[in-house]
């Protein structure tokens, strides 16, 4: 190896602490703007991909962004609800497949997504283990939920009450896990999927209780006539749906009025999509119909603007860092004055000394470049999920 490079390398190794600080500073200088840019670009691509994959979204006439974020990424901010009837209306047009979504509830921090089996086909979700839900009360969990909670098939997860003092209506339902999905790198990894009717049970719109006509119901019966039986407060309500008690679960009221957060409409073709949009514009079908990719484009424009400011800030910080590094470097050379003099006396040329000095910077720079590349690759690998995790609850 070239003598100057050898001396430069040994110098750096000997002054580990100083070298490490230089390495870290320069790495950060390179890594932060690159990572910011890549992370935003990759996340934008992933967000856009999911939005573009979702042709049409139906919701209440309110904030379009909230509707899209909630329906696509299960964001905690919920749009106003729409009636279940809207699902049938879309279905009856024959123009699109309608997939219901009800994302009001959560379980251990994960959003509970009430939907139907078509959702899994639509999102090309595959099972890593188990099966899709077959009964009310069964659930399928995303890969991240399984991993972070350490739960799987055979375990159960309980829905969270909406407020601490949730005395009426929303009560915890114990849901049995029957399937775990494969990892997708999307918001589906962090969700708990149930039949939409299960979310109505959680909401208290449906419930199961001991059969009032049975002999054992005696204490719970307040009054009985030929036509009807009235229960008192001691009636035992089930907080878990099992094969044994599932027949006792029922809904009160007309399910067409029951709530949904949104409906994904998958038109048969472009013409059907246009016709369907027309129906909404005419008012033939109530609610609003949005194109998620367009709504997201607006959001992303803001994100890119913010990104540019961040990068500008980072560049200014980098310039300051460069100034400090230069100062440190110059001071270091001053301190080595004697060493350089000795080398010259022993026969080292000016170019030898220059190479020695340059190699110090060169090795650190190359090391930083390598480290920054590895870190950037790592960020790129996990950036999408990391940023997307901020989109969900």
């Amino acid at each position, binding site marked *: 190896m070239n003598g100057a490079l050898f001396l430069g390398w040994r110098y750096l190794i000997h002054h580990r602490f100083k070298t490490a600080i230089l390495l870290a500073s320069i790495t950060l200088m390179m890594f932060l703007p690159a990572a910011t840019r890549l992370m935003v670009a990759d996340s934008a691509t992933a967000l856009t991909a999911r939005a573009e994959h979702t042709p049409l979204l139906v919701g209440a006439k309110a904030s379009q962004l909230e509707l899209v974020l909630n329906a696509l990424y299960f964001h905690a901010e919920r749009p106003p609800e729409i009636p279940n009837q809207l699902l049938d209306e879309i279905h009856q047009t024959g123009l699109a497949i309608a997939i219901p979504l009800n994302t009001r509830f959560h379980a251990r921090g994960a959003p509970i997504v009430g939907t139907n089996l*078509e959702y899994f086909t639509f999102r090309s979700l595959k099972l890593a283990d188990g099966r899709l839900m*077959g009964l*009310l009360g069964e659930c399928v969990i995303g890969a991240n939920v399984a991993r972070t909670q350490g739960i799987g098939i055979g375990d159960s997860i309980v829905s969270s009450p909406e407020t601490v003092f949730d005395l009426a209506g929303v009560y915890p339902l114990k849901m049995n896990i029957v399937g775990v999905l494969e990892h997708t790198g999307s918001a589906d990894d962090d969700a708990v999927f149930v039949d939409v*009717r299960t979310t109505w049970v959680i909401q208290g719109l449906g419930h199961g209780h001991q059969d009032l006509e049975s002999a054992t119901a005696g204490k719970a019966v307040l009054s009985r006539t030929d036509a009807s039986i009235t229960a008192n407060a001691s009636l035992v309500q089930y907080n878990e749906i099992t*094969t044994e008690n599932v027949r006792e679960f*029922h809904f009160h009221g007309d399910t067409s009025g029951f709530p949904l957060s949104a409906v994904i409409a998958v038109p048969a073709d472009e013409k059907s999509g246009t016709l369907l949009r027309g129906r909404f514009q005419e008012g033939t079908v109530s609610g609003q119909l949005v194109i998620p990719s367009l709504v997201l484009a607006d959001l992303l424009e803001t994100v890119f603007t913010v990104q540019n400011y961040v990068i500008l800030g980072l560049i200014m910080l980098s310039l300051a860092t460069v100034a400090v590094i230069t100062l440190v470097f110059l001071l270091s050379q001053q301190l080595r004055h004697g060493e350089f003099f000795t080398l010259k006396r022993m026969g080292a040329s000016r170019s030898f000394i220059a190479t020695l000095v340059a190699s110090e910077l060169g090795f650190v720079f190359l090391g930083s470049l390598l480290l920054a590349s590895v870190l950037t690759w790592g960020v790129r690998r996990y950036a999408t999920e990391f940023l997307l995790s901020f989109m969900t609850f």
Partner: protein
Amino acid sequence: MRKTILIAIALLLVACTDNEPAGVDSISSPGKPVVIASNYPLYFFTREIAGEAIEVGFPTIEGDPAMWAPSGEDAGNLQKADLLILNGAGYESWLAFTTLPDGLILDTTAEVQALLLPIENETVHQHGPAGEHSHQGTAFTTWLDPRLAIEQARTIMQGLSRLVPEQSGLFESNFKALKQRLTQLDQSLEQAFAEMGEKPLMFSHPVYQYLQHRYGIKGRSTHWEPDIEPGTREWIDFGNLLRQHPARLMIWEEAPLDSVREKLLGMGVEVLVFRPTGNTPESGDYFTVMERNLFELTSLLGEDGG
């Protein structure tokens, strides 16, 4: 994947005689579409129409398939089928709590909604270990009216033709053969019940509405189970009912207890077993059972002297 489905369905099926639903050994080729029926008559009709072109399955169910409460695994297996042949008319109460793909369901009475009959709520109840249930809404034993059964079979044929279009010719010719047999059955039953004239009948359970409606039978129904002795109150109520509705014949889903039979005889009521065959018969198929029912009916009516 198909092989797994077929094996899973095979495990659901009862393995008995040749006419029984296929057991594990007789699942032949993978690659055929899989269709599951929700009760025995539909299973039978589907198999007759489908022939060898489709694997037809029927879950192993204890008791009346109308009371079936599928487990999650059962529902999971249903999801994997290519088509579910359902009776409709509220027969499959389990639809309310199972998750199934929308496109999978073929409601065989969807086209004949106008011909469905409402249930009148009978007041005589029995508490029993089999569990309480009440009959409300629409009557669903539609296959007991052969003409409705033909319509159901027609819907099945159309559904199977959409599933396997290249076999639609086969399905149609099989349907025609089935239709002919059902029409013959209808004529025989019509003739038999015509001999009864206006005589009132009793039914042990309100599941014969379509039979009554088709053949103009004046009938009243109790809510009795074949394997349970009615209580004193029930007998008193029955006696009162008999006074209003002087039936000499009581139709049962299965043979009642000997003590019940004797007591009924003592009240001047003979027992006729007319099996609705909602579930797989112990022997024979839909037609052999209905023909047996017909035989019992004509024998008893013959004894009564018309």
